[in-house]
């Protein structure tokens, strides 16, 4: 039997998750709940025959048996309210907002640890794209003085939620970057680029390292890229690690799968693909 999952929030993230769940061997969407039955996402879900509600989290409170795991794709402020309710109901929650209440999870780094927790935080799109790479380098270079992440996403891929939450994006990504790499001195920058046709998501990682072992770094990075590619097919190394001006620099590009959102929305695709990878892991472990 598939793991029963509910989605809170019927915007771009929620709807794209729904389509990915449809493809999943391990997951079944048993509730798609938001605030407006006429939203674009809601209409899409209706066309797929998914159980709908416009009561948000109340739909789960009224019928707690409907799901085992909840994806929260609302907002940081809403998630803070949802988290307490869902904990009481004993649900596993995968949080796609930047509320940072739960354990930070990056599937390619700490998937096993995630199974021990009931609130998993997906950090941010830029975090999912870059932190595993910075983490892999931190495993071979113990003295990283400073890390900076610069992400640029297509304007069209940034919905009202992302735009209103830019500060939270930065603060959450910085916190998670420090957490995984143990580097205290970090900075995160986000740009929106409106160019048409829309650009793919790009993230550049700068690491201040004295005498880096570039061959070893390249090898680790390539391994990590391959691991991530297994759950985010459009993930690729756009600029191989170079050493310039005292900094190790590399860039990542992420193309989306083009499920609900266009291919340029790699930023949304990576966070959703990572969330699905975690839910699938819970599903597999439950079976055993």
């Amino acid at each position, binding site marked *: 039997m598939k793991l029963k999952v509910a989605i809170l929030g019927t915007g771009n993230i929620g709807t794209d998750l729904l389509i990915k769940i449809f493809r999943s061997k391990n997951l079944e969407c048993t509730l798609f709940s938001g605030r407006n039955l006429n939203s674009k996402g809601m209409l899409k879900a209706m066309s797929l025959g998914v159980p709908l509600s416009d009561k948000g989290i109340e739909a789960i409170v009224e019928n707690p048996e409907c799901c085992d795991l909840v994806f929260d794709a609302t907002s940081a402020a809403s998630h803070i309210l949802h988290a307490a309710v869902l904990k009481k109901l004993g649900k596993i929650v995968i949080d796609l907002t930047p509320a940072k209440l739960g354990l930070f999870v990056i599937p390619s780094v700490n998937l096993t640890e995630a199974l021990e927790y009931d609130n998993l935080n997906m950090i941010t799109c830029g975090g999912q794209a870059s932190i595993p790479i910075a983490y892999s380098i931190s495993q071979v270079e113990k003295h990283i003085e400073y890390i900076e992440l610069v992400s640029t996403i297509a304007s069209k891929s940034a919905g009202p939620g992302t735009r209103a939450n830019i500060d939270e994006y930065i603060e959450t990504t910085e916190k998670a970057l420090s957490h995984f790499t143990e580097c205290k001195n970090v900075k995160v*920058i986000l*740009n929106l680029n409106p160019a048409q046709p829309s650009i793919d998501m790009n993230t550049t990682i700068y690491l201040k390292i004295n005498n880096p072992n570039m061959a070893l770094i390249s090898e680790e990075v390539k391994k990590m890229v391959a691991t991530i590619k297994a759950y985010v097919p459009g993930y690729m190394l756009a600029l191989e690690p170079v050493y310039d001006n005292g900094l190790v620099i590399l860039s990542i590009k992420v193309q989306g799968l083009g499920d609900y959102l266009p291919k340029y929305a790699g930023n949304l695709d990576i966070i959703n693909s990572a969330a699905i990878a975690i839910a699938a892991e819970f599903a597999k472990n439950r079976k055993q």
Partner: protein
Amino acid sequence: MTSKIKLYDVTLRDGSHAISHQLSEQQIEAYAQLIDKTGIYAIEVGHGNGLGASSVLVGKSKLSDELIIKTAKNNLQNTKLGIHVIPGFATINKDIKNALSWGVDIVRVASHCTEADTTEKHIGYVREKGKEAYGLLMMSHMATPEILLDEAIKMQTYGAEAIVILDSAGSYLPNDVRERISLLSQNLNVPVGFHAHNNLGLAISNSLVAIEAGAQIIDGAVKGFGAGAGNAQLEVLVALLEKMKYNTNIDLYKILDAADMVENKLIKEPISISSLSIVSAIAGVFSGFSKHVKRVSKEFGVDPRDVFMELGHQKIVAGQEDTIIDIAIKLQKRD
């Protein structure tokens, strides 16, 4: 004519680009003391990309935001103190909250010209704290006048008390300025401002066109000290406006004193229209990229002009300095 024009001095902020964000305490102190006597409305201080922007991407600041702001504030009595904020670089909690506690009077919240909705919370926060908030649309040549107006209206709705459009690449012709400033001045309820760059030698004349078209705030920097080919030269604007009988309340001799000080103590190489600045304007790329393009192109043995053209072709926005090395490496492989 006796219309009132506010001159807003960006010397110690845009000029930071020209010296790779290496302003010293002594320089800020000396400049603030001189400028405070001129009658100028406000000066802006900080890293070239504003608050919280010290980074390896754009350049690390010599001084912390705290030291820059406090040093300026301690030396100003009459002139207001402004800062530049780009959401995506600075956040309310990490940066703006502190800056206000250090005595900043004006926060100019900037976004790329089509992304005004990223500024809503920041503008709202500044207004809530009872400080002056402006909305700035950067790289404004990349949007049509109609889109600029839509974005400006958004900022006005968020609470911006003035809207300034930036010719960040210095690529406007006089008519481009006239069209945009007229449309904005006719349709907004708040004053409209213009921020010029001199890549094509038009910073002063475009600023005058902006005034004719209804702008009430004009950005300038003494000696033109700013990114790339620099900004509208402030002391020239003061002299011109005086000659044209505008009321600026600025003492010409005193602003000339400040300009001389900047020339002697601050500028490493005179601000001029370099070949690269011309290419940057034609390519429509942010003037602040110049130093990075020059350094990276030299290192990878490619023509910096090709790099600028490719940046323009890719419609790269301010904050995407990371693309420079990527392009340089691709050009190097191609050659």
